[in-house]
């Protein structure tokens, strides 16, 4: 485009920076939780996730084993052990008084005022050497400055999937999602074709009605349909929720598919009719293949919507292990293990993984569907 030299480069810089900032702002929340889902419990609760990548410095104060437990070794008595009670670390300095907590380097020998000698190795092994048999039940205090390397673990995912029931919930979610995605597409595709290309009285009225239904809050359906489901004997269960999701997804499905099909070239359909093809054949052989982009985009929508749904599942499914979906399980965990971020983070990511994968691989169709539905005539 025609822009002034000089101002252009500066402006481009500013735009790039602004977009970079915006993108950062938008991905940091997810990124933070993702990092946390790989950290161990202690690390999450003591330091922010943004420190996870760097080696963390920590100051440890430990009490060495009691002098009473000293072991005779030739002419001296020795107390030994390791300053790290779990895991590993790298000692960078240690001290024996609170005034000088970093007075010695690893491996150096510190001499206590009472004459015994103390040394802490880089790997955390400490050794206190007494020249006479010591006594007392309080061990020497050691001040240790240590660096622990960044550590990541899959334990959280293991626990979440196998102990916290997310594995089962994942299966339940799949059971809800797949039929609830396929059935409405089939039903909607036929209806959309009829509304787009077949002569029928009251067609405009039907279309307007469906457009109106797009915004009906699905909450209105809960009580009447729960009663209905109970009366016809399907109660709270998968068949009920499939039907419910089909009903709630249909207005958008018919709307999107009809818009798309109405835009297909009429000549093809007319000439097929002239050649004697039935509407069923036209639908199957011409309309369906040509409508693939719209079908795909609605499929993605419906899939994401059903997968991510909490409310419909809470109402139309039971609360037992064999019916709780992932979103419901996470909400339960928020209540029962609200502070256990390692569990929550891993659970959230188990439930997010599939839709994100679908999203990134099929984004093209999703966007096309959005545009077909929203930017009319544009």
């Amino acid at each position: 485009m025609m822009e002034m030299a000089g101002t252009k480069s500066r402006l481009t810089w500013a735009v790039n920076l602004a977009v970079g900032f915006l993108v950062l702002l938008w991905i940091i929340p997810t990124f933070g939780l993702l990092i946390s889902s790989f950290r161990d419990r202690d690390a999450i609760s003591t330091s922010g996730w943004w420190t996870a990548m760097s080696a963390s410095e920590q100051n440890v104060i430990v009490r060495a084993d009691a002098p009473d437990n000293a072991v005779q070794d030739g002419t001296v008595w020795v107390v030994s052990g390791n300053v790290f009670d779990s895991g590993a670390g790298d000692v960078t300095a240690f001290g024996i008084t609170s005034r000088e907590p970093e007075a010695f380097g690893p491996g150096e020998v510190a001499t206590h005022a009472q004459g015994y000698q103390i040394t802490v190795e880089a790997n955390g092994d400490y050794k206190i050497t007494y020249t006479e048999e010591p006594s007392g039940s309080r061990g020497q205090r050691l001040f240790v400055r240590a660096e622990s390397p960044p550590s990541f673990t899959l334990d959280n995912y293991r626990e979440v999937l196998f102990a916290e029931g997310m594995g089962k919930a994942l299966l339940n979610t799949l059971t809800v999602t797949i039929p609830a995605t396929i059935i409405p597409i089939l039903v909607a595709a036929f209806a959309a074709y009829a509304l787009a290309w077949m002569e029928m009285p009251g067609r405009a009225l039907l279309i307007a009605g469906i457009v109106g239904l797009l915004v009906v809050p699905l909450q209105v359906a809960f009580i009447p349909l729960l009663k209905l489901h109970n009366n016809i004997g399907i109660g709270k269960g998968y068949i009920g929720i499939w039907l419910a999701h089909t009903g709630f997804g249909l207005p958008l499905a018919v709307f999107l598919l009809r818009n798309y099909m109405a835009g297909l070239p009429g000549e093809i359909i007319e000439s097929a009719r002239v050649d004697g093809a039935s509407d069923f054949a036209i639908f199957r052989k011409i309309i369906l293949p040509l409508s693939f982009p719209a079908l795909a985009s609605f499929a993605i929508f419906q899939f994401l919507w059903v997968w991510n749904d909490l409310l419909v599942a809470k109402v139309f499914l039971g609360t037992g292990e064999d019916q709780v979906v992932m979103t419901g399980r996470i909400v339960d965990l928020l209540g029962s293990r609200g502070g256990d971020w390692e569990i929550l983070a891993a659970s959230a990511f188990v439930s997010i993984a599939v839709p994100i994968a679908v999203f990134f691989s099929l984004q093209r169709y999703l966007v096309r569907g959005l545009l077909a539905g929203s930017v009319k005539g544009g």
Partner: protein
Amino acid sequence: MDQLLFAVSTIIVGVFGCVAYFYFSNILLDRIYPASGPNAGANINKANAIRPWLFVLPALLVLGLYLVYPVFSTFLLSMRDSRGDFVGADNYIWLAGDDKFRESLGNNLLWLVIVPAASTFFGLVAAGLTDRIKWGSVAQSLIFMPMAISFVGASVIWKFIYDYRGENQGEQIGLLNAIVEAMGGTAQTWITVPFWNNIFLMIILIWIQTGFAMVILSAALKGISEETIEAAYLDGATPLQIFFKIKIPQIWGTIAVVWTTITVTVLKVFDIVFAMTNGQWGTQVLANLMYDWMFRGSPDFGRGSAIVMVIMLLVTPVMIWNISNAHKENR
């Protein structure tokens, strides 16, 4: 394993059932009114009159049963009390005097103003900026990504950001408090701070919806004719002037569509409040209040239904606007 078998077999039965319905009903129609023989002409006409209805019938049945009938049924239910006796407008009168309801309505109005406005604004900014750079499509994907995340997942993500460690409990692990402390402020339990906690909940929905607004507005911006923009350049307009005075007026229609779509989402949203605060600390909204009355403690279907009817009333203008728009296009 049983469940998997059950799911797979139901998918097959359901899908084949659908296909079989369409297939056999069409064959049946052709049998009854064959397109040959003595009355071929009349038969074709009759079959053509019936066939569209065969195609739309399943959809109409499901829509009627799952969306139309419930509207009326819920309306009737809203005039009954918890025992099912007819009480007229009592539930609505009770609503008008209920503190929680007023709080919910107030919060909902706040949501209705802030979330669509902020999402559309950020979407517009993101669309305007990403259209001008090379890695724009990558940036758009990343901003769009939260659309794929469930409200519950998003709530977990943001709850972590708002996390608060009390004094003497060590370092702040929530990003917001860490930033606030780094800048010399005092850490807070953000989701219990009156009024502002509403905003913190709204940020979650804004974060999710901005991508949606951006994608649609970006397409609309690309559709603007080059000539008007070039003419403005020649007249010496700055990029900002062009954006606000030339581009935005041309996409008002799309902005309105985005705005109303997000408005409808806001009215129905339940998961975020449910997962974050469950309506405590002054954050109650209508959808969650309704859930409380319908399914928690001692359910009162009448009051729950009355709250749903209020939500229904709030979306009605959008519904009318939608229908009249669609009507205009089909003419």
